């Protein structure tokens, strides 16, 4: 088994902000514990679009045998969401439709965002693409993937002579 260094592909990655943002302390500790994999600033447009911008908030859970990605996307229809996986990069995209006919009255306050979005996430572990399962409940898109055999944690027996 070879250990290969996890490389984030060019372009999009998980952390959507550039260095100028200050992170809540526990989150920044979490990121630091992974050895600065979120180092380089990303595509500048991502930095300006978060938070509260045009990208869904994403969580990546690390289970023993699975990797789970959750994205907050309230108010969508299943058929307007696209999920694709290629070379260890999970891409969520789609179009948030909504808004009301402005001719029939006015908009007093508009905080929700609509329109196309696309977000690519480098998965932290190798996964079995065939096991991908996506569900959309209560406005949260949940994608579950089984870790590839070589990515699962293993007990290593040490022989003492």
């Amino acid at each position, binding site marked *: 088994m070879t250990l290969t260094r996890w490389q984030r592909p060019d372009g999009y990655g998980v952390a959507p902000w550039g260095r100028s943002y200050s992170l809540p302390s526990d989150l920044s500790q979490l990121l630091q514990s992974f050895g600065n994999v979120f180092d380089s600033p990303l595509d500048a447009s991502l930095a300006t679009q978060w938070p509260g911008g045009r990208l869904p908030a994403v969580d990546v859970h690390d289970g023993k045998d*699975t990797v789970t990605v959750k994205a*907050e996307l309230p108010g969508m229809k299943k058929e307007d969401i696209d999920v694709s996986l290629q070379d260890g990069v999970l891409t969520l995209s789609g179009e948030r439709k909504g808004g009301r006919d402005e001719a029939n009255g006015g908009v007093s306050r508009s905080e*929700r965002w609509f329109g196309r979005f696309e977000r690519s996430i480098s998965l932290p572990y190798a996964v079995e693409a065939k096991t991908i399962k996506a569900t959309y409940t209560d*406005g949260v898109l949940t994608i579950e993937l089984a870790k590839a055999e070589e990515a699962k944690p293993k007990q290593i027996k040490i022989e003492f002579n």
Partner: protein
Amino acid sequence: MSTVVNRNTEQAAPVQPAAAECEREYIRPAVNIYETQEGYVLEVELPGVNKEGVSVHLDGNLLTVEGRRAAPAQPEGGFFYRESSGADFQRVFEVDPAIEAGKISGRMEQGILTLTLPKAEAAKPRKIAVA
């Protein structure tokens, strides 16, 4: 013409919340407010909240919307990466007194709470015929 939101009050007013309540962390959900001659429509984004987790409360002219998330904030296994706060939602609005409280209705679908606040008949604009 007065609107639904004169200001967004951050604390539940006028009653002081109990000490335990103060420790709960809430986040303010994003909301769109539309106004028509018939009344107002609020679209509140509450991802991760189902119908059972929603509570809407009108006290005088303060409308409080609360959304409790269905799943636990800390799942088994760790977070590799997290952007969601996992906290429950809460937001308070000061509503137009012309709203007919008894006719407020709501619908919850895929994390969006749509509240319809109809204006009382007397408050609706009406044509006045001039002889």
